[in-house]
């Protein structure tokens, strides 16, 4: 199984997406079938490739000196690619239903499917230059999705979004330049590529570059000083906020941070240095800051967006521990949080789609009128809080195990931050659930008589995600082993 399939997997959705506005579909159904077929085909191809793991790399294009766009499948890449490939068809199905009454769908699905290919490109990138190119392409392709509704605040949100993204890429660029100069090769090699003969005395310079590069790449993961774009991007339609700002775009940022930390600069070079201290501090602040803002936020999507900000810093916390266990913990939370958050966002999306209500205090008594949606929401809430028996607890457990294994004071502080944020998560999730199921004594149900559950296209993804959350909660042993085996290669 040669590696050409990697390039096919990346370029097919980009091509399919780009063609959508130009193909004259007879009616909306045919368009839906075309898009869903394309996405499913890519997912199947992806899982076939994951299944028999082609080892050799595939050079797509060599454009300057030793710089080239090339793909290679390794452990970390296959986890992220697998996650994206699993979620995308379901999210597309959901967005068919959601986009029914939103405007100009063709452009929406064009960029939506192209993002799929580009995210796979990031996952399968073999060296830092390819990843950087797809990383930048991702910011540009997702911009039209953010400003899809073209209202005034959508434009403002889009503008902030693009400033942060390109700003981050600019700082990440410095890291890229450093790796190209000081690294033995631009490829991703587990354990780092820096050759210390060349670095010689100025270690601090490299550490400073690493900090700049980490902040550059993790701006997409909404790290504390630069996290205001994520809640603002909540103005986009729900499939965008759900898939992109809870799963694809932000996880791509975390994935890039993992690649840079473990595969370019090398974890043991960075462990114990002041750079790790600075980065750890920012991550811990984000964990607590994200949750505290979520508690005060009354707009549902923004509340979940702030919760994503804090949960992403869980992933970064794992990355920043600079140990193989830390990486395994980060990957596990990346996957589980993706399932939990996307189901929460889809529930909120269903509420908005059916009733158009967006604020928490308008949800009284919805539990009875939309039982399926709110049961799923409760399960994802419990999972997010970290109730044992659901996926959230397992990933928290892996992260904490790694932190304990690291054993530094900052790691313990991180654990405390994790628990404080879990408590705050409990607060902002449970208030919604209690309000939905127990509206209070004198609440007359006539006011919400028109509310009822959406049709199967929305319910199917929700059920699949809930089953996944419970399944991973109940038996996640094999998955954690796999992750540890991937990261042990460090």
């Amino acid at each position, binding site marked *: 199984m040669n590696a050409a399939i990697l390039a096919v997997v990346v370029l097919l959705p980009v091509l399919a997406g780009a063609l959508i506005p130009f193909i004259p579909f007879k009616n909306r159904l045919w368009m839906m079938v075309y898009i869903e077929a394309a996405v499913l085909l890519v997912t199947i191809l992806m899982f076939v490739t994951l299944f028999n793991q082609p080892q050799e790399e595939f050079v797509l294009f060599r454009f300057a000196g030793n710089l080239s766009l090339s793909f290679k499948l390794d452990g970390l890449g296959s986890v992220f690619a697998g996650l994206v490939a699993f979620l995308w068809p379901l999210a597309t199905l959901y967005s068919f239903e959601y986009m029914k009454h939103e405007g100009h769908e063709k452009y929406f699905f064009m960029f939506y499917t192209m993002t799929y290919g580009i995210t796979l490109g990031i996952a399968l990138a073999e060296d830092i230059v390819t990843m950087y190119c797809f990383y930048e392409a991702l910011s540009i392709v997702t911009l039209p999705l953010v400003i899809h509704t073209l209202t005034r605040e959508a434009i403002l949100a889009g503008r902030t979004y693009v400033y942060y993204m390109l700003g981050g890429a600019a700082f990440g660029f410095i890291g890229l330049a450093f790796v190209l100069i000081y690294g033995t090769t631009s490829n991703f090699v587990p354990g780092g590529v820096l050759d210390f003969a060349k670095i010689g005395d100025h270690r601090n310079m490299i550490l400073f570059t690493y900090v700049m590069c980490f902040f550059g790449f993790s701006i997409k993961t909404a790290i504390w000083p630069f996290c205001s774009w994520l809640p603002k991007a909540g103005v986009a339609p729900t499939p965008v906020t759900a898939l992109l700002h809870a799963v694809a775009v932000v996880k791509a940022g975390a994935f890039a941070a993992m690649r840079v930390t473990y595969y370019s600069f090398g974890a043991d070079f960075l462990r114990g240095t002041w750079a790790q201290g600075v980065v750890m501090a920012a991550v811990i602040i984000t964990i607590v800051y994200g949750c505290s803002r979520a508690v005060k936020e*009354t707009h549902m999507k923004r509340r979940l967006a702030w919760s994503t900000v804090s949960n992403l810093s869980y992933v970064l916390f794992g990355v920043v521990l600079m140990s193989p266990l830390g990486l395994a913990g980060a990957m596990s939370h990346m996957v589980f949080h993706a399932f939990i958050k996307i189901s929460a966002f889809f529930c909120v999306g269903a509420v908005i789609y059916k009733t158009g209500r967006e*604020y*928490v*205090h308008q949800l009284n008594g919805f539990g009875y009128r939309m039982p399926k949606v709110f049961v799923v929401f409760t399960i994802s809430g419990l999972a997010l809080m970290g109730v044992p028996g659901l996926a959230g607890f397992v990933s928290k457990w892996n992260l904490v195990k790694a932190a304990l294994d690291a054993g530094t004071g900052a790691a313990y502080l991180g654990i405390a931050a994790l628990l404080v944020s879990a408590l705050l998560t409990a607060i902002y999730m449970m208030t919604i659930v209690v309000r939905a199921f127990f509206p209070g004594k004198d609440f007359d149900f006539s006011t919400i008589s028109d509310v009822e559950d959406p049709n199967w296209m929305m319910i199917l993804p929700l059920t699949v995600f809930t089953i996944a959350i419970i399944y991973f909660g109940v038996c996640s042993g094999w998955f954690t082993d796999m992750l540890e085996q991937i990261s042990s290669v460090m």
Partner: protein
Amino acid sequence: MSRKISEESYRKTRSFRLHQWFTGEKDLFLDQVEMKPQEPFTESKKVKKKREKEKQKMLDQIYNLERNRKTGPFQTLYRVVSVLFCICMVSLFLVAVSYLPPLGDAGNPANNEVPQRYIENGLQETGAVNIVTGMILDYRAFDTLGESHVLFIATCAVLILLRLDGNKKKLQEEEASDSAHEPENDVILQTVAKIVVPPIMIFGIYVILGGHLGPGGGFSGGAIIGAGLILYLNAFGFEKTERFFTAKTYKWMCFGALGCYCLAKSYSFFTGANHIESIIPLGTPGAILSSGLILILNICVGIVVAGTMYTFYVMFRKGGF
């Protein structure tokens, strides 16, 4: 021992809040959870109008010229800084001059083999008695070619700015204003011009033609002829000069001179670079028709310079020939 305070003031004290927390009546955290969303920002019409008025007032403030003139510190600061900059520049130059090779000393680095060859076999190679003309028009001919084109492009620029022949009305009005100040047929000037203009012209031609034999050349001769023309125009007004010097003549004259100059020089460059023997005879030194192309080039340059001088003056005066 503690004063008995009223119920309301007690409610505001810190100990009461602590008691509330301790007994659990009121929790400092729970009630804030369900805030209502803020209303969108709306601006009443009156406020909007006031803001517009203020903005306009501010704009006038910025652009009022008198106040700008007296902008106090900024102007003086700019002036002081510039003066300081010039002073330190002068001192820098003086220091540099003090380190330059001594003036007039024969051993200066400038007197190396380059001027030596010019002087020793300049006459044989270019045929020009005046070594400087030989250098300008033969050794370093490319600069002088560029030179004449600088003149040409300057005239074009001036034409762009000042030529008015586009709209007739403006031309008449310009003509009227031009002659308004000049006295008609100023007798003294005309008689002096009648006496002086011919010798000027002849002397100019002499200087141009004698360029390769003695001091002079196309540039200085052309300037003299140009000055003569301007004097003639001043004295006899535009009707007289239009008879022999119109825009068309100028255009063709200028193109002819430059074209011939360019072609002649490119011939000599081409033959030089490809080491082909150029067929132009150098003639006997000292004779008028000696030193190959230099004479022709001098004439062309003279024409260009004279035309330019005259055009500048005419453009400044009337914007039309």
